[in-house]
Structure formats: C-alpha cells, structure tokens
C-alpha cells in the first residue's frame, strides 16, 4: 500500500511538471537601460495632458501618453505617476467652469442619430477655482506655449478672466506665482519628457492666422522681430530665437538634477486633420447651379475683379472653390464699387459700397490654402452678420480670416515649425537627450504609418470607413486614446534605442477610437 502512495506521488509530480514553461518569461529581458525611471515628470501642453475631443476629461486623461509611458516604466523601477485630479469631472463630460460659469465646452462625441460630432449634452463640473495646489508628475498644461512654462502668474486664478493665466494650470499650480517648470522640478525628476512648442505656432494656424476676433491678422514675430513674449497676442507666432532661448532654459532646468529624458518635435499642420479634412473646393455645382443670384454675382465679380474671381462652374459633377477673404491681397474695393455703381443693375448699384467692402480682398481658395475643420459646419450657411443675398458663407460671403490658413500663412507656420524643430533637435543633441521626432511620424501618417503588427494608420479624420484606425479625436488636432498609444509607442522605441532600455510597446488597435453615442 505504501508503494502505491509513492507511485501516486511520482505521478502527481509528473503532472505538475506538465505545466508549459518558457525559456524566458515575458518580462525577463525588460530593463531601464541607462535611464532611471524612479521619478518621471512630463512637461508640455495639451498633448501631454491627455487632451482630446476638445477638452480634458476624467476618462480621456487616463490615456495621456505620459500615463501610458509610466505604466511601462513601472515594469523596470518606475515609481508612482500622478496626474492633475479630475475627480470633479463626475460625469466624465470634460469642459470647464469658472465661478460656475461655463468657459470650456464638453467633450465631442459622434451623435449617431445626427451623424455628426456634437458636444456632449450636460453641464461641466470641472471648476477652475477648485484649486489643488499640488505638483504632479504630469505637468502637461493645455494651451501652454514654450514661454508659458517659465511664466510666473500663469497659474494665478485672478488672471483667468483677464486672459492672463491658464485655467488648467490654475487648478494645480502650487502657488499663484508658481511656474509650470518650477512645479515640475519640485518633483525632482530622474526622467522627463518635454513636448512643448506646438502652440507657439499652432494657435496661429488653428485660428487661420487671425487674432481672437477672427478677422484681424495675428502677428508672426519672426517677421516683426518682437522678442518680448509678454507682449505677444494669443494667436501670434513666437519668434524662433525666443523659442530657442526658452527651450534651452527649459531643457537645462530639466536636466539640472541629472535627469535624462526625451524631447519631441512639433508636428506640421499639414499632417493634422483639422487642416486637411475640409476641401478647398467644397461647393458642389449642384448646390450653386440653382443659385441664379450667385451665378450672376460671380459673372459681375469676374469682370469687376479683373479676373481675380472666376464665374461659377455649373457643370454637373464639378466643384467650385470656396470664396475666402485673403488679407494679403491688394484691396480693390474701390474698383469693385465703381464697377457696381456703373453696372446699370439696380441691385448692384444699390449695394455698390457694400460689394466693394465684401469682395475687395476676396478670392477663390486654392489647393494651397487650408480650410479649417470647424468651417465645415458654416460653409453654405447664411452669415448672421451679413445681408442677403450677399450672405452665404463661402459662396457669396467670403470666409473670414479665421476659417482659412492661406498659402502665405501656411508658409509662415511651416518656417516657424522648421526653426523650432531645428532648435529642439540641436538642444537635445547638445545634451545627449533622446528625440522623438513626432513631426516625422505625423508626416508618415499622411501616406500611412505601418506599425509593428502590420496595421496601417493614417492622419484621416473620423469616418465610418476609418472607425477602427482613426488616431485623431473629434477636435481634429489632438489624438484619441488609440493615437496616444501610437505616440507612447514611438517614445518607448526612442527610449529603447537611445537609452539601451527594453520596454514593451502597446497595441494601439486595442485602444478606443471615437466615442459614438446613439443620441445626444
């Protein structure tokens, strides 16, 4: 009997050894390499904060790329990673309120019943004056430009209403006079990511080169030579020398405690669906061919503008470019007014002065102009501040400055972006920091970025066809969770190669894309 028990024991041991075992378990070769992830701090703007769908929300913030990175760092000694609290976003709506008054929109979703993006219905509960006075590992501040990171008072509640401070930073600045960089350094980082600089040019671009009034041209300080960012308008392009100087200060501060890190370049606007989704020739002939007034008006303008504006093409299947106002054009309003006054047409004669004012700097958009995403909802609609029949946006009412990044404006943006990126790479190289070339990666997205598992991602805006591969959120500028996973992967790969680390990447395809609700 005893023998039988022995045999049973041997049999049991045999079964236990039947458990499959790998020669190297999955995490066996993970390493931090030359980097020390004990305290990871991320500085940057909305892209670092986890901003998406036009806001920061409690749910969206979880997908910030620094948070994704930190989960990988934790495999090789990375410590706790904290992000600003959005516990007050109880309904996961996003948005912002200041003193109970809504100052930021709720997050965008696709309303399936309407087949369009809409702000989620509801009242935001993220209150700016709900001060946390805490330094976090994620110091991404939506809206921040390079020089804002070192600006005292950028987190002062009193400045929000005056446009002098940033509501997001106000919520967690340790003191009203604290700087973003100072709060970041209070964490004593051993490793950092720095992705700042996009807003130094992007706020100009997303506003179509206009100031906040939507009409007046914003300044390119590479042209003006203005070196004092304190005097810059919100949508101005930061002077490249100023940018390089501030960027150098930021990097030198971040590495002052011996930290290593990754810096990221500024993406080109031409790789962002906010600028590439709405076609310049958005007007189908079917829509304009029945508009006798427009046809007649264009025929008149073709003469009055000396050919700057062409007659509408009414052939079926063709499209007409939208009509835009280009502030860089010579103003020929008096010529147009004179033509109208002498046209013999009662309508034109009665409106001669108005016609001159409306079309004096009007032209057709071309393929070199970028019509911004929000314009899609106003093109073809009557403009409230105009008078019929010269009031249809993009048709008989030229699109205002803010709707279009013209070819000239685009060049300014491109030049500034190139200068910034040259500075970023140069400063990083001088300090032996890793560079995540997000500009190059975003440019690859234009033709299709093939990732490790064979999936091909593009920079397209959401559509039914792209639902499972879209990387951008509904604001057209910021990534969605899947896009942030792609970004995290690119940074992880840079860390692996530059710092001889071995960290696993993410499967972007498993991350959520666009939030679609049945009704809103």
């Amino acid at each position, binding site marked *: 009997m005893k023998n039988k028990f022995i045999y049973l024991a041997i049999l049991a041991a045999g*079964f236990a050894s*039947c*458990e*499959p*075992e*790998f*020669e*190297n*378990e*999955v*995490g*066996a*070769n*993970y390493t931090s390499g030359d980097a020390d992830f004990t305290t990871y701090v991320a500085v940057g703007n909305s892209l670092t904060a986890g901003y998406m769908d036009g806001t920061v929300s409690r749910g969206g913030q979880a997908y910030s790329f620094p948070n994704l990175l930190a989960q*990988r760092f934790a*495999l090789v000694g990375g410590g706790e990673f904290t992000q600003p609290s959005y516990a007050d976003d109880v309904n996961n709506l996003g948005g912002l309120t200041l003193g109970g008054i809504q100052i930021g929109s709720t997050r965008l979703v696709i309303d*399936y019943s309407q087949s369009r993006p809409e702000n989620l219905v509801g009242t935001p509960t993220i209150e700016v004056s709900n001060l946390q006075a805490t330094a976090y590992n994620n110091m991404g501040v939506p809206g921040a430009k390079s020089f804002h990171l070192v600006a005292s008072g950028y987190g002062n509640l009193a400045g929000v209403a005056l446009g002098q401070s940033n509501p997001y930073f106000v919520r967690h600045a340790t003191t009203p006079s604290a700087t973003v960089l100072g709060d970041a350094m209070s964490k004593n980082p051993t490793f950092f990511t720095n992705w700042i600089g996009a807003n130094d040019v992007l706020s100009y671009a997303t506003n179509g080169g206009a100031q906040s009034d939507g009409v007046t041209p914003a300044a390119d300080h590479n042209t003006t030579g203005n070196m004092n960012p304190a005097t810059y308008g919100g949508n101005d392009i930061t002077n490249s020398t100023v940018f390089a100087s501030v960027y150098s200060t930021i990097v030198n501060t971040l590495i002052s405690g011996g930290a290593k890190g990754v810096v990221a370049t500024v993406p080109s606007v031409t790789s962002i669906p906010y600028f590439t989704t709405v076609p310049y020739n958005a007007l189908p002939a079917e829509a304009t061919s029945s508009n006798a007034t427009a046809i007649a008006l264009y025929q008149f303008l073709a003469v009055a503008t000396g050919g700057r504006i062409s007659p509408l093409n009414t052939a079926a299947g063709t499209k007409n470019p939208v009509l835009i106002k280009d502030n860089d054009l010579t103003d020929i309003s008096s010529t147009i007014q004179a033509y109208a006054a002498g046209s013999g047409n009662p309508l034109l004669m009665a409106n001669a002065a108005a016609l001159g004012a409306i079309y004096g700097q009007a032209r057709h958009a071309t393929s070199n102009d970028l019509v911004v995403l929000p314009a899609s909802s106003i093109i073809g609609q009557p403009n409230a501040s105009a008078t019929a029949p010269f009031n249809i946006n993009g048709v008989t009412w030229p699109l205002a400055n803010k709707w279009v990044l013209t070819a000239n404006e685009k060049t300014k943006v491109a030049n500034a972006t190139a200068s910034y990126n040259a500075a970023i790479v140069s400063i990083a190289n001088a300090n032996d920091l890793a560079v995540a070339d997000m500009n190059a990666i975003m440019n690859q997205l234009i033709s299709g970025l093939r990732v*490790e*598992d*064979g*999936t*091909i991602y593009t920079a397209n805006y959401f559509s039914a066809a792209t639902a*499972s591969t879209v990387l951008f959120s509904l604001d057209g500028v910021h990534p969605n969770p*899947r896009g942030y996973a792609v970004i995290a992967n690119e940074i992880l790969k840079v860390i692996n190669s530059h710092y001889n680390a071995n960290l*696993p*990447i*993410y*499967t972007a*395809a*498993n*991350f*959520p*894309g666009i939030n*679609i*609700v*049945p009704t809103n």
Partner: protein
Amino acid sequence: MRKLLSLTLLALAGSTAFAGGYRVSIQGQKQLAMGHTGVAVVNSAEVAFFNPAGMVYLDKKFNLSVGGNGLFANTKFQNSQYGWEAETKNVGTPFSIYATYKLNDWFTAGLAVYTPYGSAVEWDQDWQGSHLVNNIDLQAIFVQPSLSIRVGEHFSVGGGPILATGSVNFNRNVDRSTTNSQGERTDLTIESKGITAWGYTAGFMFNPTDKLRIGMNYRSEIMMEARDGDATFNDYPEFGTAPTTKFNADLPLPAELTVGLSYKFTDKFLMAFDYNRAMWSVYKNLDVDFTNPDLVDSHNPRNYKNSSTYRVGMQYAANNKFTFRAGWYFDESPVQDGYFAPETPRNDSMGYTGGLTYQVNSKLGIDVSFLYLHFDEVDNSYDYVSDGSSFEGTYKSVVFSPGIGITYGF
C-alpha cells in the same frame, strides 16, 4: 495521438467566425500505449478503428474494448514586444467503444464508435488574440459499422461507412477595439449542432509469415457542412442594432492514409511501425458565409499542408497477467509559418506513450495508458488577420493524457 491538433479553426474576418478543431489521436488504450500504432496489429477490437481488415484475425468470437481518456492540453502564449501573456487550459474526454463479432472463419462484423475530433481551446475572454478566438469547442463522434473479409490464408480486406456527427461553438471579438458603452468588447458566437456527414474507411492486411503483418488503411475525407447555424452578437454598441443572421460554413476532416507493419520477434515481444499521411492541404480556407447580406462574409486563409506522422510501438507480454507497452511518435503539424493561429496553437510534437494490461481472467482485461506530448517552444504568427494586421508570439504547449479501459472477449 496524432495530432492533437490539427484541424483548426477559424478566425473570422470582419465579423465572422467558424471553427475547426483538433484531430485527437486517442483511439484505444492498447494501441495508444504503443505509440498509437495499429494498422498492422491484431490485439483487440481496437483494430476496428486502426484497420478493419484485421478484425477477422481476432481469435475470439466476440471482442469488446471500451475506454476513455482525460486529455489535458495546456498552452501558454507570450509576446515580450507587447508584454502579453495568456494561457489556455483545457480538458477533453475522448472515448472509444469497439466490438467485433466473428460470423464465420471468413467474415467478421464490427462496430466502432470513437471521437477523433474534439477538445477545445479557451483563452481568457478579450485576451490579446481575442479578435482571432476567445474560445472554441469542436466535437465529433464517428460511428463506423465495418466488415472484415478474409481472402485466402494470408490476406484480408475490411472497411465500412462512417457516420460523423458534430457540433461547433466558436466565439471571437469582432475586431480589436469595438466595445459597447460600458467598454465591453463586442463579440460574436457562432454555433451549430447536429451536423452530420458520411465517409468511409477501407484497408487490407497481409500476413506473409506467422510473425509479420503488413497493413494499410484509408479513411476518407469528411466534409462537415454547417448550415443555418446560429450567429449571435454580444455587447453590441448601443448606437447600432446587432444584425440577425445565420451562417454557413464547411470544415473538412481530411483523408488519412496509414501504412505499417508489425513483427513478432518472440512469442512475448512485438514491435509495430506506422506511417500516417493526413491530407490536410484540403483545408485552404475557413469561409463563414452569413445569410444576412449586410454582413461581410468571413474569409480566413488556413493553407494547411499535408502532414506525416511516424510511429513506433512495442508490446511485451510478461506473463499471463501482465502485458506492458511503450511507444513513441513524431507528429508533424499541418500549420505553415505565418498561418499559426491561436485556435490551433500546435507545432510539431513528439509523443511518448506507455501502458499495460492486467488480465483479470481469460475474458476480462483492464487497460491503462499514458501519453505525454512534447512541444518545443515556438515563435510564430498569423499574418492574415482581416484588418491587415499580424498576430505574433511565442507558444509553448504541453499535452498529457491518462486513460483507462477494459477489454472483454469470449
């Protein structure tokens, strides 16, 4: 075991699925213990499966063999590039019932009931490969009446029709990201029961001397045709309505040719050698057609290749009470590189078998067997996911199976 694996399954594309399964070579305790040789072995009623032509050589007028196994199949999966880990542990219970009856010196009739396909794979729901398979359960029972005819002193033929009855249940996520509003991944289950199909088996046995037997057996391909099976979407996004549909799919159970010999070195010691060729190349694709025209049919390349299994077994009759058996085989996987899907995570394997019979009396014997199937760790991928991606990783499987049965005859 011949291939614990082999059949396969499906992955669906777009929003579909169907299943394949395993060829489970556990068709008798005595023969399993001998490396699952048997096309030229006349030991018991198990020969009704291995080569019906041999039934006529059984000494007793009536022979019955009944047995079953616990089949434990464990597979681990990992991918260090993504930090993935997953595991599937499954238990199957293949069984067999064989009976023969000697009508006269020239004719023996037999009946075989066995489960050559079955078992299951069950990964964690929503695991990293959930767009290919969450779980699959394929079952098939073969019922095979047979006749064995002696043609002269040294030669016999045998065969019979096979009625296959099967069912399949397969679940996978519809893609790699779609969820409902609670974040639960959308998945699809397809299920079909009571699928029946016919095939046949035929072979011969030649005994040129008292010591040498030579056998050949052929089992035909059987096409399992699932028609109007149920397809059910789960956790479908709230903004849409889950489509209602049925599905049709065909799954081939491939033809198999076996040749072999056995040689009786002494009265007590016998060795057997079998070679199997499974015609897996018939399994090009797993296509699941949805009856709802709004759904994209699922096309899943499989591209299996014909595969061979090499078996050797031996038997030593120690005394009147005890007979010992051992065996070994090499089992080649029909799955080609780049088509390695987690529904059938099996590469080439080596089987080690052993067992014994305790003869209680002249009529009744008790058979036990044990199989250990060794798989090398393998890096492979499935490169034909419908969304254009590839699913890659390292797999390591272990399979073992203890079994018990009785042999009765008079």
